[in-house]
C-alpha cells in the first residue's frame, strides 16, 4: 500500500502478469526496472539489474544533426552494420506477447523490449534507406507528410518534431517511425536512436495527429535524460548479440540540460507535525535511502537529493509524501480537526426557497429530475426556440452538446420522450437547473405535466391534467412566499397561442406558463397527450423582498355570502373580474372565491360561464343585508358595464 495500485493479475503462460495503475507523477515506474526499484524499496530487497555493457566505439560525426536543442535535449545514434534480421528468440517473443506487444523481428523486438525494460523509448532505422546516410532532428515543414508504420499517411506542420533524412521526414519524433525506413528482413545496416524529446512538444504533436504510442506515452510524462545512454547501451548490446552485427560507431549530440532535481531541505519536525505522528529519523533515512534518495541529516534539517529518475520531487511536501507512503497511511493516528473558521456569510434565502419549492412540488406529486446543461441547435429548433441566443461551446464532445442551454424545455422534452417511448405517459416532472447566457447563469425552475391526473382507481382514467393543475402548483409555492402572481396572456413561440402567459408579481416577469404548441409535439414525435410547461426565473424570485407573514385573526362577526353566475367573453380573465369586484367592494367585500367555469352548450359561442362567490364581512361589526345588497348590486352593474358580463 505504497502508491501504485494493482488493477488486475492475469496468468499468461509462464507466470502472472500484473496490470498496474501508474499515476501521472511517476513516469519512473513506466518500466520493469522502475517498478523493480519501487518494489525493492517497499520490500527492502536488493534489485538485480541486468548487466549493461558500457559500449565503447568510434565517435562518428555528421551522422545526426539537431536543429534546435530545446526540442531535443539528447540524441544518441548508434550505427550497427551487417545485421541479420530474423525472428527473435522464443523467450523474448513470449515476454513481449505477455505485454500485449506483437513480436516482429529481432531488431524491432529489441527496441520494444528495452522500452519496456528500461522505460527509454528507442527506434531502429534501416540505415541504407536514409537518403544522404544521415538524419536531422527538426521541425516538419509545411506541406511535408509521412506514411507511418501503420500505413497511414499523415500531414505534418512546423508544430511537429520529425526525424528526417536529407530529403524528407522518416519518423515522427518520439511517436512513430515511418514505413519507408522500417526494419525488414532485407535490412543490412541499422541506425539505432535513443533520445530525449521535449515533453510538451510530443504531447502537442500527439493531439494534433491524434496518434499515440508506448514511446509517446513516456516522452509526454518525461523520460529520464540519463537513461538515454543506458537504453542505447542495453539495446546495442542485445542487437550485437541477436543480429550478429558489428558496431560501426556512435554519435551523441546533447544540450547542456540542467537536471531539474534540486536538493530539497525538509525539517524532521515538520514531517512529524505535518503527518500528525512521530516519525523517527532512522526510519525516515531508511525509507528514503531505499527509494534511491541521498539523505544528510544535520540536527533537525534533512538535505535530500532525489535520484535522477524521480522528476516528480521538487519541494518538502514531496519528501513528506514519500515518507508517509512508505510508512503506510494506516500507521498515522486519527484525529478530528478543530475548526476555527469563521462563517463566511452566505445568503441562505435561495437555498430556503429551493427547499420550499421542492417540498411543495413533491407533495403535489411531482418528481424532481436533473438534465444535461448542454443542448444543440436542432433541439432548440424543434422546441420553437430557434431564435433564442445560446452560448456556443468551443470544443464540444459531440454535436448534441454544442450549446449551453438557454431554457429548460428541450431537455425536459427529451426526458418526456424517453419516458413515453418506454410506456410512461403520465409525467409530473420538475427541474431546478440553470439557463446559460452571455451575461451569466440563471437558476430556473422548470415544470412539466402530461397524462393522467391521478392513478387513483376511484377517479376516471381519462381524466388528464390541464393548465389549472400547473397553475395550482405555481400558486402553491408563490403563496408560500406570500405572493399572488398575476397572469398576462402573451403569445410565446413554445406555447399554443390560446394558452400562453407570463407570470407577474409586482409587474416583474417571474416566468412563463402554457400548453406546449402542437407543432413542438410533432417535431419531437411526442405521441402522448397535451403537455403543460412552465418556467420560473428563480433569480427574480430570490430578488423578491421577503414577505413577512402576519397572522390573520379570525373574524368574530358573521359573513354574508352572495354567489354570482355570469358569462363573459373567453378573453376576459377571471383575475380581472376578481380585481374589479374587490375594487368596488367599499371595504365590505372581504374576499372573492372562484367556484367553477363551464363551457357547455348553454353558453353562447365565444363566451365562458363563471360562478364565484363574494364574501362580505367586517371585522368590527355585523353587516346589514341592505348595505351588502347595495354594494353587491353596484359590483354587478360594474361587471356588466366594464367587462360586458351577462348575468345569469
Amino acid at each position, binding site marked *: *500500500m505504497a502508491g501504485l495500485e494493482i488493477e488486475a493479475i492475469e496468468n499468461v503462460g509462464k507466470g502472472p502478469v500484473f496490470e498496474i495503475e501508474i499515476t501521472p507523477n511517476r513516469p519512473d515506474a513506466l518500466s520493469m526496472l522502475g517498478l523493480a526499484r519501487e518494489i525493492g524499496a517497499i520490500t527492502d530487497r536488493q534489485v538485480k539489474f541486468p548487466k549493461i555493457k558500457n559500449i565503447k566505439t568510434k565517435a562518428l560525426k555528421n551522422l545526426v544533426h539537431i536543429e534546435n536543442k530545446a526540442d531535443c535535449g539528447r540524441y544518441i545514434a548508434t550505427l550497427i552494420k551487417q545485421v541479420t534480421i530474423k525472428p527473435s528468440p522464443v523467450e523474448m517473443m513470449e515476454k513481449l506477447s505477455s505485454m500485449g506487444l506483437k513480436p516482429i523481428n529481432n531488431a524491432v523486438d529489441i527496441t520494444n523490449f528495452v522500452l519496456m525494460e528500461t522505460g527509454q523509448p528507442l527506434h531502429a532505422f534501416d540505415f541504407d534507406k536514409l537518403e544522404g546516410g544521415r538524419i536531422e532532428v527538426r521541425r516538419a515543414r509545411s506541406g511535408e507528410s509521412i506514411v507511418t508504420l501503420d500505413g497511414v499517411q499523415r500531414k505534418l506542420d512546423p508544430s511537429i518534431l520529425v526525424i528526417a533524412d536529407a530529403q524528407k521526414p522518416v519518423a515522427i519524433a518520439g511517436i512513430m517511425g515511418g514505413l519507408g525506413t522500417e526494419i525488414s528482413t532485407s535490412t543490412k545496416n541499422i541506425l539505432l536512436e535513443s533520445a530525449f524529446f521535449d515533453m510538451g512538444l510530443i504531447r502537442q504533436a500527439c493531439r494534433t495527429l491524434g496518434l499515440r504510442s508506448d514511446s509517446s506515452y513516456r516522452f509526454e510524462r518525461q523520460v529520464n535524460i540519463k537513461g538515454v545512454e543506458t537504453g542505447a547501451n542495453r539495446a546495442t548490446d542485445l542487437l550485437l548479440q541477436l543480429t550478429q552485427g558489428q558496431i560501426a560507431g556512435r554519435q551523441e549530440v546533447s544540450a547542456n540540460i540542467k537536471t531539474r532535481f534540486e536538493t530539497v531541505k525538509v525539517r524532521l519536525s515538520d514531517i512529524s507535525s505535518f503527518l500528525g505522528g512521530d516519525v523517527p529519523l532512522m526510519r525516515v533515512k531508511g525509507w528514503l535511502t531505499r527509494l534511491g534518495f541521498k539523505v544528510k541529516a544535520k540536527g533537525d534539517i534533512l538535505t535530500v537529493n532525489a535520484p535522477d529518475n524521480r522528476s516528480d520531487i521538487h519541494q518538502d*511536501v514531496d519528501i513528506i*509524501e514519500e515518507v508517509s507512503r512508505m510508512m503506510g497511511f494506516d500507521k*498515522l493516528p486519527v484525529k478530528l*480537526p478543530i475548526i476555527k473558521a469563521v462563517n463566511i456569510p452566505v445568503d441562505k434565502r435561495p437555498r430556503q426557497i429551493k427547499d420550499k419549492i421542492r417540498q411543495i412540488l413533491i407533495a403535489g406529486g411531482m418528481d424532481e429530475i436533473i438534465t444535461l446543461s448542454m443542448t444543440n441547435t436542432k433541439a432548440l429548433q424543434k422546441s420553437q426556440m430557434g431564435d433564442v441566443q445560446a452560448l456556443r461551446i468551443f470544443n464540444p464532445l459531440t454535436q448534441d452538446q454544442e450549446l449551453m442551454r438557454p431554457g429548460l424545455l428541450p431537455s425536459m422534452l427529451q426526458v418526456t420522450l424517453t*419516458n413515453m417511448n*418506454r410506456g410512461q405517459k403520465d409525467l409530473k416532472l420538475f427541474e431546478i437547473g440553470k439557463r446559460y447566457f452571455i451575461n451569466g447563469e440563471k437558476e430556473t425552475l422548470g415544470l412539466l405535466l402530461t397524462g393522467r391526473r391521478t392513478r387513483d382507481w376511484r377517479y376516471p382514467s381519462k381524466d388528464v391534467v390541464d393548465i389549472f393543475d400547473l397553475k395550482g402548483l405555481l400558486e402553491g409555492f408563490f403563496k408560500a412566499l406570500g405572493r399572488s402572481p398575476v397572469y398576462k396572456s402573451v403569445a410565446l413561440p413554445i406555447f399554443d397561442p390560446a394558452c400562453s402567459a407570463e407570470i407577474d408579481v409586482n409587474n416583474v416577469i417571474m416566468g412563463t406558463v402554457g400548453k406546449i404548441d402542437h407543432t413542438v409535439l410533432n417535431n419531437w414525435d411526442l405521441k402522448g397527450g397535451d403537455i403543460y410547461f412552465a418556467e420560473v426565473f428563480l433569480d427574480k424570485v430570490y430578488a423578491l423582498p421577503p414577505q413577512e407573514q402576519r397572522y390573520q385573526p379570525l373574524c368574530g362577526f358573521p359573513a354574508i355570502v352572495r354567489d354570482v353566475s355570469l358569462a363573459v367573453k373567453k378573453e376576459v380573465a377571471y383575475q380581472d373580474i376578481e380585481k374589479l369586484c374587490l375594487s368596488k367592494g367599499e371595504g365590505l367585500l372581504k374576499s372573492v372565491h372562484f367556484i367553477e367555469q363551464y363551457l357547455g352548450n348553454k353558453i353562447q359561442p365565444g363566451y365562458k360561464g363563471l360562478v364565484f362567490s363574494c364574501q362580505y364581512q367586517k371585522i368590527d361589526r355585523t353587516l346589514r343585508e341592505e348595505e351588502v345588497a347595495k354594494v353587491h348590486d353596484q359590483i354587478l352593474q360594474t361587471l356588466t358595464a366594464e367587462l360586458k358580463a351577462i348575468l345569469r
Partner: protein
Amino acid sequence: VRVMKQHKPPLAVVVAGRVYRPDAVDASHSFMFHQIEGLLVDEKVQFSELKGLLTEFCKRFFGPGVVMRFRPHFFPFTEPSAEVDINASILGIQKKQWLEILGCGMVNPKVFQAVGYPKGQYQGLAFGLGWEGWPILNKAIMNIGFFLEMEGGFLNNF
C-alpha cells in the same frame, strides 16, 4: 480557489455542484455529473486530521461498523494524496472488495502560492467525491447514464 482568493483563512468550506469532463462515456463515466468537495485551511492542519474527518464522516454515513482504508494516490493539487476505500461488506455485498469513494489529500503548497497566500503560512486538507459514483459502486445502479435519462422507473427509487 475563489473562496481562498476572496476570504482569509481559517476556512472550512464544502461545495456541491455540476462538473463537466471530456471523458469517454461508459457505464461508470459521464461527461456531466455532480461533485461534493471540501477544503479546510488553517495555519496548522495535519494529515491525521484529514484521516479523522473522513473516518468520522464514513462512520456517520455508513454506520459505525464501516471498515475503511486510506491508499496513497496522486492528484496534482494535493501532496500527499490518497483515496479512501470502504469495505463492501457494510453495504451488504457478499464479495470481499474495496469500493473507492473519496479522493483527498493535503493541499499542495503550490496551490496556496497560486492564490497569493504567503509562503509557508497556511496548510490545508481537501477531499472530493462524485456522488453519482456511490450507488454505482455498490452495483445498485448499473449505469451512470440512468442519471441523465431520468426514466420513471429509475425515479421511483428516490
